[in-house]
């Protein structure tokens, strides 16, 4: 635990906002915009200078932006900055398989789950967007907003929560007063730790290798997810003849793959990728992400709320992490804007409990599903292979079940916050 903050007892802090958001990543920056658009005074604090967040090497991932998340970004005016580079996902094909040349046979199981957007209508299932584009678009809109006070680079040294206001002490000695402090800094959330909120967490014996490839033939917007024995291997279509690869590997081997020479790395990649899109070439830049599960016991305390990975971290198998984070953002923003319209104290636990209640079921469902799917598939046990292949086949065969899964993955199922339906909030 960090040293307890020592905010002065009486003097008003030099800086003030209604809501102080710590962490200007995808969740934090989106929340800042959602609140500012509804008229709230927001402070957005991040330890990294904004320019560094958008450097090519900062974040090599791409995100599967669900249809609901796209509507949120559109309602906040961010989507026009992204539309050009966003790749619509027309289909998702899920299959069970082994890398070529393993134990005498390889390839893809004929039983697979197939999601096709045409089954639900004209709109795609979602969009693949590179994270650096997302960060750039969000931070550009943040910079253009008069209601957002940006404090970056700035390190948070302490959070003190009083009966009438919270104070955020910055390492440089400045102090910020706010009715509510939001932790949006990811799994190692300082705000969460400042409140000593317990977490349930474990590391998966897996790590994700992320890179971008170019291939010869067009991908036609089809995303592939193959359940290989070491973990899921995802081929996610990007604009042009490019794909983002999320290659889940045994943690003890992943480091070795990352260090391979370019031809060796590409050879390993092709064993898993196959040749259905013609010759494949890996672009420069490989990233390694350790994988873990995390669930905070509570996502709210008096004058404190957690969103995104600060509250819950999940296996990337379903590409749902950021979409869940944005669902948190949309729900919290709606609860806060409504409370403010009634003159309520935004840090009041009665207000914040409405946010927690709204999100709990969806978060638990998604955490359980991603953990379960990964456990079920990341192995090579004969009976399990057969059972899960039959399971995939069964889900695929039952239309209503398949469409429910699709709507869930698209982020348009359940009791949705207005922003996720593309509707603005606030006056």
């Amino acid at each position: 635990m960090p040293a307890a903050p020592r905010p002065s007892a009486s003097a008003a802090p030099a800086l003030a906002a209604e809501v102080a958001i710590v962490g200007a990543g995808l969740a934090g920056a989106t929340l800042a915009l959602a609140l500012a658009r509804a008229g709230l005074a927001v402070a957005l604090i991040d330890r990294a200078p904004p320019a560094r967040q958008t450097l090519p090497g900062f974040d090599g991932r791409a995100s599967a932006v669900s249809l609901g998340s796209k509507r949120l970004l559109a309602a906040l005016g961010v989507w026009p900055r992204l539309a050009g580079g966003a790749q619509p996902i027309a289909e998702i094909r899920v299959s069970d398989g082994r890398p070529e040349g393993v134990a005498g046979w390889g390839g893809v199981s004929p039983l697979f789950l197939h999601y096709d957007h045409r089954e639900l209508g004209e709109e795609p299932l979602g969009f693949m967007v590179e994270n650096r584009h997302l960060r750039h678009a969000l931070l550009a809109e943040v910079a253009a907003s008069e209601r957002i006070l940006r404090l970056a680079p700035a390190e948070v040294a302490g959070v003190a929560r009083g009966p009438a206001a919270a104070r955020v002490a910055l390492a440089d000695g400045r102090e910020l007063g706010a009715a509510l402090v939001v932790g949006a800094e990811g799994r190692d959330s300082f705000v969460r730790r400042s409140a000593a909120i317990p977490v349930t967490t474990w590391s998966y014996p897996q790590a994700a290798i992320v890179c971008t490839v170019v291939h010869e033939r067009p991908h036609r917007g089809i995303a592939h997810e193959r359940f290989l024995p070491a973990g899921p291997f995802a081929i996610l279509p990007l604009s042009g003849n490019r794909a983002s690869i999320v290659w889940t590997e045994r943690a003890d081997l992943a480091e070795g793959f990352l260090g391979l020479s370019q031809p060796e790395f590409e050879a390993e990649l092709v064993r898993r990728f196959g040749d259905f899109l013609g010759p494949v070439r890996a672009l420069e830049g490989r990233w390694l992400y350790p994988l873990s599960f995390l669930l905070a016991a509570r996502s709210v305390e008096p004058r404190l709320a957690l969103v995104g990975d600060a509250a819950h971290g999940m296996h990337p198998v379903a590409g749902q992490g950021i979409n869940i984070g944005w669902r948190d953002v949309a729900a919290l923003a709606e609860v806060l804007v409504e409370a403010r319209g009634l003159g309520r104290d935004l840090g009041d636990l009665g207000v914040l409990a409405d946010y927690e209640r709204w999100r709990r079921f969806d978060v638990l469902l998604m955490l359980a599903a991603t953990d379960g799917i990964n456990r079920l598939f990341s192995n090579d046990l004969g009976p399990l292979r057969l059972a899960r292949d039959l399971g995939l086949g069964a889900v695929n065969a039952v239309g209503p079940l398949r469409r429910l899964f699709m709507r869930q993955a698209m982020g348009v199922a359940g009791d949705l916050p207005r922003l996720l339906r593309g509707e603005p909030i606030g006056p």
Partner: protein
Amino acid sequence: MAARRATATEGPHAGPGPTADAAEVARFADLAASWWDPRGPLRPLHRLNPVRLRYVRDRLAGHFGREAEGPAPLAGLSLLDVGCGGGLIAEPLCRLGARVTGIDAAAATVAVAALHARQAGLAIAYRALAPEDLAAEVAAGSGAPFDAVVSLEVIEHVAEPDAFLAALGRLVRPGGALVLATLNRTLKSLLLAKIGAEYVLRWLPVGTHDWRRFVTPSELGEGLARHGLRLREVSGVVYSPMTDSWRLAGDADVNYMAYAVREAAPGG
């Protein structure tokens, strides 16, 4: 709220000065904590608060021609909260722009409210006073009647409802508005609000309410009319166990809110 929040200035009716703060904090810290803890003993009141605030905001905004969803919809209105308790209604109404005075007969509760408002930087004038006494002050020319008066969950606790309504009538300026919340006297309210809430669910301490003092909407309408107030609307407030929240509904058999207006002064 920072932008809209006035600096706490000590008005003529504000509580003791800042020097008394430390002693006050010590004396009322527990009481204040229990008033303002949404999971504490007053949890039912906290759960009820959003729907009450929405009703007060919407009716007053409508009455004074404001946009209810707009910023500071009650800006500039002078507003009296009768039976303000710890300030659960007074503080939000202050944030919505009203100049709020809160009165309560319990001096300790008023001290809690004043302390909390000061900590929150809200300029609310709190006084330990009965509405009859404030009405007498106003009648004597000390202070003006208010644009609006709210009194939520109070009338069912007063010994003489008619005298209470008479005082409220004198505290609302001609053309002003009154918003009340109370409990209806029906068999259903005896079962739910009295037996259910006090004995079964244990939401409220036994003895919180005396069912015989509950007021029916028609009695309320007649009482208001005797004192120059016209009942404009009654709306039921019902509990949804699934979401643990309250909402407005047509069913006014148990909890209800009422909106009334003071006729403009006769003869101009």
